[in-house]
């Protein structure tokens, strides 16, 4: 019966919404986007030096940038 499947769909939706509403992050209402954004930024800056695609690496230490040797056969 379509009413029954509508009913179970609706029940599932309500249960899902209840679950989402109760998850930790909702209770932490003091958390601001600006704080989360600041942490993302901090991670970037802390790891920037190791990021070869960002800062480049000394010539010769990126295996893909090295010229490949050719063998004459």
């Amino acid at each position: 019966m379509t009413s029954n499947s509508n009913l179970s769909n609706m029940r599932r939706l309500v249960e899902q919404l209840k679950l989402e509403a109760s998850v930790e992050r909702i209770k932490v209402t003091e958390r601001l986007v600006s704080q989360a954004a600041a942490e993302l930024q901090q991670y970037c800056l802390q790891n920037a030096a190791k990021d070869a695609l960002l800062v480049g690496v000394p010539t010769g230490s990126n295996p893909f940038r090295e010229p490949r040797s050719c063998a004459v056969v």
Partner: protein
Amino acid sequence: MLASASPLIPEMATQEVQLNETLAHLKTESETLKSKLEEERAKLHDVELHQVAEKVEGLGQFVMKTRRTLKGHGNKVLCMDWCKDKRRIVSSSQDGKVIVWDAFTTNKEHAVTMPCTWVMACAYAPSGCAVACGGLDNKCSVYPLSLDKNENLAAKKKSVAMHTNYLSACSFTNSDMQILTSSGDGTCALWDVESGQLLQSFHGHAADVLCLDLAPSETGNTFVSGGCDKKANVWDMRSGQCIQSFETHESDINSVRYYPSGDAFASGSDDATCRLYDLRADREVAIYSKESIIFGVSSVDFSLSGRLLFGGYNDYTINVWDVLKGTRVSILFGHENRVSTLRVSPDGTAFCTGSWDHTLRIWA
């Protein structure tokens, strides 16, 4: 009215009335919960990422070029993955071929022909000793890689996952023992490789699931998936529950990728935008788009520090975005057809793209 009919009918009529009442009640409850969630989310949103990052130094010019071109597929390249050794790559194609390459030398090390076309998903095992792949066969199969080049890999094939529609993505978890899959059947699933047993299934998408990504191991047992229902869902692997859901894209989500710290993830969509979602703030914090970019994004990945976001697009280009400032820092040309797949190497020294032009390119 049904009063004059047989004794059963009035009972059914009352049942139907009750069902409709319960339905209406649940509908009201769900509307209330939805607006409550919206209210809570709105409280947390006071500023966007690029505003916070105003004081950060801008990025200079980038010199990124194709350093290797891998030729050998006979048709569209659909997927690729890096081996943990940072030099081997597995790729899969519309023609049913799965090839393992040494990206330094561009040599092909292994090749398997799948019994189906459109092998949309492939993944390298953490040990480097096996690859997984699947597509229109609705399965995910694991092939142990043999050191003996003459050995027929297809003979050792192990069928692991079975879906009821195409396999769109697969990934090993932190070991060779478990595989996570997503499918056109709207579900994701976690499988035991040895026994083929289904360990957990993840229901919640309302349409095909197109992509998935596992959270970096330090951040626990979660993964994110994106689908044709425009939603990106974050799942708890143990319970099977969807713990967070984001619906801001205007079209199919083709690719999702965790930010290196695990606190956020990026998505790429047919709506021509990439977006960044922060998991603790529980909302979208950045959109990467330009009026001039009108073609869909097929795949995204971050550079090692998370500062750069690479997007492969259906207009054959790669756009490189400054994640913090929201601006595009570079556009890369080279492919002669859609870019269908893109992954940064495990140590961040290069990234690889696969395309409908039958080739793969390594950029650095």
